[in-house]
């Protein structure tokens, strides 16, 4: 008697999508929409582009349903698609900074103050800090950036990140080590 390995819940849902169950696709969308969009947002730093790429990722999942095989975790497969889309977008220069980002505090920039409460200045300082964090992450090579975002913000395992980036676990650890060293060096004055 052959033991059947239990499939992860997402893989089971995707197999149902393969059989034509669109409600299962809606459940997968509900579970993974937010992390995919957030990952893509941090990759391209533009919400509209991130949502467009996320839509394309889910469309590709749906289009591939008939050939789906649960050879890897569903999340790994989904993030592989999303990562490839993001890397292409970064390569094609589709990432844009948000227009409303406040430049670093050292520059002279007229700022309209709509509220006289003390927390406006705190918000400006916070915005400046976040702007530096975003710039530091954006300055990373695209693959290092993707590895950091999956590791830090999506809390993915090394094996999942390796699957998404289509490389070995040791390569992922190397990417992360270099990326974090670079980020710590650049953001040391803020930490």
């Amino acid at each position, binding site marked *: 008697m052959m033991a059947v390995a239990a499939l992860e819940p997402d893989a089971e849902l995707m197999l149902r999508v393969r059989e034509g169950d669109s409600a299962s696709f809606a459940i997968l*969308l509900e579970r993974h929409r937010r992390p995919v969009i957030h990952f893509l947002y*941090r990759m391209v730093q533009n*919400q509209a582009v991130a949502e467009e790429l996320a839509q394309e990722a889910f469309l590709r999942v749906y289009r591939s349903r008939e050939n789906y095989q649960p050879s890897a975790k569903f999340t790994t497969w989904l993030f592989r698609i999303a990562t490839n889309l993001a890397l292409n977008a970064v390569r094609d220069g589709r990432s844009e900074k948000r227009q409303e980002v406040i430049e670093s505090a050292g520059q002279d920039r007229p700022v309209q103050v709509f509220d006289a409460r003390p927390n406006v200045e705190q918000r400006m300082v916070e915005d400046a800090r976040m702007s530096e964090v975003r710039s530091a992450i954006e300055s990373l090579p695209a693959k290092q950036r993707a590895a950091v975002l999956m590791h830090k*913000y999506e809390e993915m395992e090394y094996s999942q990140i390796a699957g998404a980036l289509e490389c070995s676990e040791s390569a992922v650890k190397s990417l*992360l*080590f270099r990326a974090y060293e670079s980020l710590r060096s650049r953001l*040391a004055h803020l*930490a």
Partner: protein
Amino acid sequence: MQCPSEHGDNAGILLDFCARRLSSAQTLAVERHLLECSRCRESMDAHRSFWNLMGEWQAPEVSPDFDRRLFDRLERQQDRGWRARIAGWIRLTWKPAIPVLLTAATALTFILVREPAPVPVPAPQSAAVDGVDLNQVEQTLDDLNMLHQLSPTSSQSL
């Protein structure tokens, strides 16, 4: 446990400790080491500050109409799927059909454009009698006239 500050291979363990990715046994080992190693404690503090700073970056919320736009695109794609299948069928058949269509078009053009062959028309009946017949008629009339003059009834009148 090997000191991460002295052994570069183990440096990632401090990051994993920060990210809470270690097993319970590994976490305990790191915590014990931090109690003894000031270098690693400093390094750990720097890691933690950096990790918390990174964590402050929040992503915007997803647009409320994201799902609707996605399902609209899915529907349009399925409609295009039908049209694409028909277009694909046409693409498969149009190339072999070209010679047949060209031949048919050429034949049709030939039929419509060429001049019709002259239809043989019988010669019209002329009202004029040809010369031979006219002379014969005249001769016949002269003969009849002569016979009339020579007949017994006609001579008595003389």
